[in-house]
């Protein structure tokens, strides 16, 4: 059970990391449009470049 002394603090770090990642994603505008990307990925839209 001693491993818990490592795992519990680790889980805390992980939670903070996920929170930070999400925070950045929100600020980057990734949640501003939740419908468009779903369609964009289905569409065959390779541009002739």
């Amino acid at each position: 059970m001693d491993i818990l002394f490592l795992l519990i603090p680790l889980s805390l770090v992980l939670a903070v990391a996920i929170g930070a990642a999400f925070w950045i994603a929100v600020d980057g505008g990734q949640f501003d449009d939740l419908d468009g990307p779903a369609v964009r990925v289905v569409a065959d839209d390779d541009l002739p470049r």
Partner: protein
Amino acid sequence: MDCAHCGLPAPEGSSFCCPGCEAVAGAIGGLGLGDFYRLRDAAAARPARPVQARPEDALLDDAPTLARHARKLEDGTLEIELLLEGLRCAACAWLVEQAVARVPGVRESNVGFATRRARVRWDPATPLSKIVTAIRAVGYGAWPYEHGRIEMVEAGERRTALRRLWVAGLGMMQVMMYAVPAYIAGEGEITADIESLMRWAGLVLTLPVVGYSAAPFFRGAWRELVRGRLGMDVPVALGILVAFAASAWATVTGAGAVYFDSVTMFVFLLLGGRYLELLARARAGSALQRLARAEVASAERLVAPTSLETLTIPAARLVPGDRVLVRTGEAVPADGEMEGPPSEVSEAWLSGESRALARRPGDALTGGSVNAGRAFVMRVKRVGDDTAAASLRRLMERALEDRPHWVAAAERAGGAFVAFVLVAAAAAAAGWWSVDPQRAVWIAVSVLVVTCPCALALATPMALVAASGALARRHLVITRGGAIERLAGATDLVFDKTGTLTEGRPRVLAFQAMRGHPLERARELAAALARPSSHPLDRAIVRACDGVRELPVSDHRNVPGDGVEALVDGRLYRLGRASFVAALHGRPFVAADGGDGTRAWLGDESGWIATVRFGDALRPEARAAVDALRDAGLRVHLLSGDGPGPVTAVAAQLGITQAVAQATPQRKIDHVRTLQARGARVAMVGDGVNDAPVLAQSDVSIAMGGGADLAQLRADAVLLSDSPADLAAGISIARRARAIVRQNLAWALAYNAIVVPMAIAGWVTPLVAGIAMASSSLVVVGNALRVRR
């Protein structure tokens, strides 16, 4: 067969309803974007405007305009946000994005469906007008987007709310991980040091949830207390605070129970409800943006007081005192005063009234109106935020902040309930203190949490949110808070005939050639004369003569109030009033076939050639809609200012028995009052500001939004599709919402009546209280979502 592009009925043998749709579909196919038709889940908007380039497009390339709207990036490219018109589904967003990306010189294009905005990055070498034209070619409108203060605030609010929600959600999940072992482990199965570690971990993760995520509740509670009121936030804040403080104390001292899991879950569920409410508000806000369309882009300013020489400038740069030339068919760029010469102005955008109104020197002009007569000069009086259009828009913004009556009532009841909860919690704590001091605090927290009035607070807004979403899908946009409840309670529905049950624009009912004139030739001539004119009747002729051979015309002249004349193959023809045409040939007036209504005549120097009869046709779906409304138990009335002939005809076709013709506004108000005196709740369907007094007298008013964007502001709701069928569906949605609100309130009351005594008796631990509260909220939310069905 329905139009392949917009889904409206198309003529037999054709895949499209109009040349506009056909051109747009052609453009979409030409770009290799045919996938659009496979991906979309809503028919496209019918292209409202001609697809060709428009004069104000050139303004987009004007350096000051670019400087105002576009940002210059480090690599030398420009970036701009365009507000899009006509987006119906996510596939539309994709289509616009692709169409823009295929314009040479565009580096990046990004369309947000939710925001209805396109962000485009492009080489300065490519004119912006080309990008806007490309968007128009596939059937959408676009204009540079100016960040309004409100939108900025709203976007910031939404992000903050999302962050708070996520922090709470993450905290909740992780804290639960630390809490569950303590619940399921038997006595002595977890060593004291590990249990303490888990408690500390829970404390650490609860800290941001309470300190950051729950901050709005503390602020709200503080504001309520300062104002001497008891709102929903007070017990919420108190419950969170007491539970957290006691748990933290237990963690530090290592004695007593901790309920970090209850605290975090509680905060998360509350924030979730608030976030949904925020989204609904934002959706209502996007209707606002559509009003911005009434603004005019360019103006022709007179350079000198004496000459008619003009300089085209962006309308935004006009200042009061400027003198502006408004040509035939162009829009009045700002509010002002007519200088002359006398002309006619159509205020259809404001009133829905398509008939042009005479304006003499000195008369007031409203920005956005269209010059339907000859060119005139006006003096600008008010620009920008001071114009009628802008103030109407502000009215709508304010309307959005209205508290619906249901919500207000729930809040008042909530206030009393909160007081009761606080007293009950305090009494329970005091009572238990004498019996078992150890449990007193926790029982008080249980009472606070379990009775948390969220079921009560969520019941109404959730149903309203779901209902406004469902209504928006039927193109019915609510502009005033209480509209849904009043719509649900309506017993009588009054149609104002003009434009509500009929097409609202003139249509050719009969085209009759005179003896000795072939019909086909007459149609070609009429279409040729009407084509260059923008008069509604001429437009109707062009629509009716669609497909005829195009004859070349020269010396086309518009005679306001009379008609048009032009040379075709060297002969002079006139189309217009009988007197105007008769003046050309001097022949006596001839009788035409029966039927009343507006008429136009066609003639040349040797006599009459043809006559055209116009009328207002019934909307195709009107009959079914009126039947549906009657089936829903509504009494349907028709009040119209038109003559008895057309009104009886419409009423008979629709089976409406209560029809009043030649109704003046006063008469309409009296009629509505009489109905109300008999206990009826009257829903009024109008189409413009000209029926504003009647709309105000009615219990709930609905504006048809197609022609008259700004008229929307006077009404409680706007029907964007103009379809009476959507109206019938809207009323049934509103009624379902009302039923669900009642169920939800009943549930909330029953739940509280059962759990409060249990919590006071000490049978409910804070965790169970939290779960019970959460399930109760979920029941309410789930029930509310049934409105969408």
